[in-house]
């Protein structure tokens, strides 16, 4: 897997925070109908707006799985407010670099993170089976 950074390989091989929180405070889902990548986040948010627990499930290319895991590791313990700064470029950096054909997963990851914040702010549960923004 020479096309992947060490960080991507690590998260791909040992996904962090895998699963789904049954009674999560907030859920966010994103899917890319072109390449088929999908990420579901479920999280609990503490009183001080800090993400106290977060889980992911994902389907898609190896990079998207790794980025989903990386995303949960990044978000876990952070204040929700900081997530609005988490854009594709920052995620790509955290991932240790992505090949051109993998870059779309950084956008996907940023998107689902922002949805998580928005859903929590709006008190909504994003339930569209497929939503696409990438």
């Amino acid at each position, binding site marked *: 897997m020479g096309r992947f950074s060490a960080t991507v390989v690590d998260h791909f091989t040992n*996904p962090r925070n*895998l699963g789904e929180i049954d009674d999560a405070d907030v859920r966010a*889902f994103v*899917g890319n109908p072109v390449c*088929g990548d*999908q990420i*579901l986040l479920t999280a609990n948010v503490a009183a001080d707006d800090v993400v106290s627990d977060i889980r992911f499930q994902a*389907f898609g290319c*190896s990079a998207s*799985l790794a980025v989903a895991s990386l995303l949960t590791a990044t978000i876990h313990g952070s204040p929700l407010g900081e997530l609005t700064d988490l854009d594709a470029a920052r995620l790509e950096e955290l991932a240790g670099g992505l090949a051109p054909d993998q870059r779309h997963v950084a956008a996907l990851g940023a998107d689902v993170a922002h949805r998580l914040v928005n859903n929590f702010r709006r008190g909504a549960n994003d339930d569209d089976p497929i939503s696409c923004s990438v």
Partner: protein
Amino acid sequence: MTTRSPARSECGADDQLSEFVYLDHAATTPLTAEAAAAVGDALRLFGNPSSRHTLGQAARDALDEARAQVAALVGGADDEVVFTGGGSEAINLALRGTFAARRGTGHLVTTAIEHAAGLECAAALRRNGVDVSIVAPEPGGHVDPARIAAAMRADTVLVSVMHANNETGAIQPVDEITELVHAAGALMHVDAVQTAGKLPLDALGADMVSVSAHKFGGPKGVGALRLAAHHRVEPLICGGGQEAGRRAGTENLPGVRGMAAAAAAALPRLRDPRHREHQWRLRTRLLRHFDVLDGVRVHATNPVMAETISVAFDHVRGDTLADVLDLNGVCVSTGSACHAGRDDPSHVLTAMGVGADQARATLRFSAGPATTEDDIDVAGRATVAAVRQLRRVSGTAPRLQEAIRAG
């Protein structure tokens, strides 16, 4: 990941093979020891085969000898063998060379499951005014000769059908098709790139047969077209009179010698029933590993190449699965190597009626002559573990599954 038999270490590719279980022989094969030695020798034989001096004539003799060895593999007389820069070039010479020699007129019949080389030639010919009919396969991966017959017209010049499909391994009824094509007075081309060195080619009645060295233990970048003496093609590469005017340019002597040595090494295997049985044993053994999983489907029905196993694992992405296996030292691919990196589902599986999700869930395992039962066990166990892991990551939550299906 596995222990290799000592015989393996003769092979030049051993350094890499020793770390990996390589089950991607349909994409390319390790060079056989015989081919590696032949290439090495030919590198020293440096004269130009067209030069009249001793060094040139030594190169010429080596070229002639190689031609005879390749002719023995593909069938046909020595002067019916045209060396090319690979399988794709051979196919281009067969298809485009045939129509160019007829000023681009007439009708071509081919199939929807051909390799990109065949399909792109058909597309290029169509752009240039040739009528092209593309016959779909049956759901089991085979082209029905009756459909070829139905597609043929009075002005059909050429019918091109592959011997076995590179993605599914489905063996096509090329003998039956050749017979009906010849009965109708048309020409027949067989893309035998996937069968050369695995099935006998000398009995093929086709007017043209394409092969590629690196698929049967020879070097990359060299191939051959068996071109019947009665049939004239316009060269793709014009210039000097090499290859009897059918392909200009100083000959790839190391490549051609390597291909010839690989051909000579493959020939005895073709007549050896134990080799065939071994391949079938490997196939059965790999598939048995998958019995513990749900949602596993093998795409092609019989007749099929034992070596090539195309299988879909529901709710798993083939490319991702291939990456997990790669990290575990098992090299496989999702379909044809040319498709790697592209997200569109396989044209072969799509033509067979396989849905996009199933097509994307597909992995191709392809064994080689040196593949052992140990290799198969390593690959089988790793695949089962990887499928389970990826299904765990995508979860069983109905919503994600639903989304997956809808996607």
